[in-house]
């Protein structure tokens, strides 16, 4: 079976600055994978490249065997760090927008998740707090029946209670059989849900492993391994 995602000898430069260097890895199907690294080590750049938001300087990205394109965007559901919705829209209009463009968007699921937040569909996004906007984005992204969910720092800047909400929402709602790639530096919060980890440092992949065998080998938690590996 074809790999869900393959990155082959991927490079990304901004002028003279080399952000990613010879990044090569594959993502399997049906797993939750953590893309772990300190801030500024290339996690978001890598994710942006996969999502066609950046153009690689060299190398290749294949999603279900094809380069980032309309076909790949149909199967990837991406949650960026930023709030990307048109703030003049209402929640209902945002649902309509996703329905217009994504055939796999499940409005009923989105409505159900919205109900948990006690939000009215007619609320304007601009009137919502930043935290609520981020939760709405998560609902939109997770309500797609995608093959790959890419979540860039979904726990960044949120309080511990919200972190639990985010993780529980992801776990309870992502499409069965799909993979989830989560980038973060808050490993202790996320460790419990990860099947595999990819460690990235200074633009290079330094470790890929499944979490259980890594824990067994090192006899410590992933968080501890991360702390030791990236000690300043």
């Amino acid at each position: 079976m074809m790999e869900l995602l393959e990155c082959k000898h991927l490079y990304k430069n901004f002028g003279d600055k080399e952000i990613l260097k010879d990044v090569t890895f594959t993502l399997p199907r049906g797993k939750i994978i953590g893309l772990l690294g300190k801030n500024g080590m290339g996690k978001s750049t890598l994710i942006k490249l996969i999502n066609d938001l950046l153009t690689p300087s060299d190398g290749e990205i294949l999603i279900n065997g094809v380069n980032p394109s309309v076909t790949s965007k149909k199967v990837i559901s991406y949650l960026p760090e930023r709030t990307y919705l048109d703030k003049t829209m209402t929640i209902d209009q945002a649902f309509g927008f996703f329905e217009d463009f994504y055939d796999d968007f499940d409005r009923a699921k989105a409505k159900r998740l919205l109900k948990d937040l006690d939000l009215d569909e007619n609320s304007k996004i601009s009137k919502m707090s930043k935290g609520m906007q981020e939760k709405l984005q998560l609902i939109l992204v997770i309500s797609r029946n995608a093959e790959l969910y890419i979540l860039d720092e979904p726990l960044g800047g949120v309080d511990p209670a919200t972190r639990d909400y985010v993780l529980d929402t992801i776990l309870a709602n992502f499409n069965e059989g799909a993979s989830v790639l989560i980038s973060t530096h808050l490993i202790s919060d996320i460790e419990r849900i990860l099947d595999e980890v990819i460690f990235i440092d200074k633009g290079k992949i330094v470790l890929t492993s499944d979490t259980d065998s890594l824990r067994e080998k090192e006899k410590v938690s992933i968080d501890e391994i991360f702390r030791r590996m990236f000690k300043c």
Partner: protein
Amino acid sequence: MLGKVLKYDLKYVYKVIVVFYILTILFAGLTRIFWSIENSTIMGVFGSICNGITICLMFSILINNMMRLWSRLVKNLYGDESYLTHTLPVEKGTIYTSKFLCALITTFTSVAVIIISIFIAYYSKENLEFLKASLDAVAMMYDTSIINFLAVVFGAFFLEIVVVLQAGYTGIIIGHKANDGKMIKAVIWGFILYVLTMGLSLLTLYISGLFRTDIMKLFTMSGAVSIDTVKFVLYLGIIFYTLLSVVYFAIDTLLFKKGVDVD
């Protein structure tokens, strides 16, 4: 997908422009009402104030239309919203085509609203007769019908606005290829391209002057300008701006298809 993308692009621009449309038509109506009240100095003054506001609003429509279209391109393709735009399952060429079509449609309706407002504010049987007589005379001089004459003038004006808009679009796209100072570079590139466009139009006219002595007279300032010369310049303008618009569209699409680097 083009229809869906275009729907959201048009919504964004019209959301604000429509307010200007309504205000312009409203003040055009008020101008007409105040001026239609006879023997009242105060109503005449109100009429003049409303007339001034109407004219200002007409210019605002054109300026706001341009600014809104450029701002849409920047926000939607390079700002926070670009994280959604570029991850939609839509071809990059389709996204750009939608922006271009949106520019054509909103510019057309803006010019149409301006014409309607002029009609509302100043229409009277006498004015229409006067306009018709004037246009008849001009149309006869140009050896054409009133409709053709108006279509040529409107066409040249419309295309010029579209080309200015596209120079801005290309500037934004080139500017955002840079690694830093993207916005300032976009403005500089837009300005350079606009100046180049104007320079190229003068050069085209000069080259045609090498083959037509009456055109060369425009540069040497010798002798009166004939009707034939004006006609030639208008037609040349339409052909030139149409070609330039096609070239800008091709360059923008090509640059855009090569990929983006959003912050």
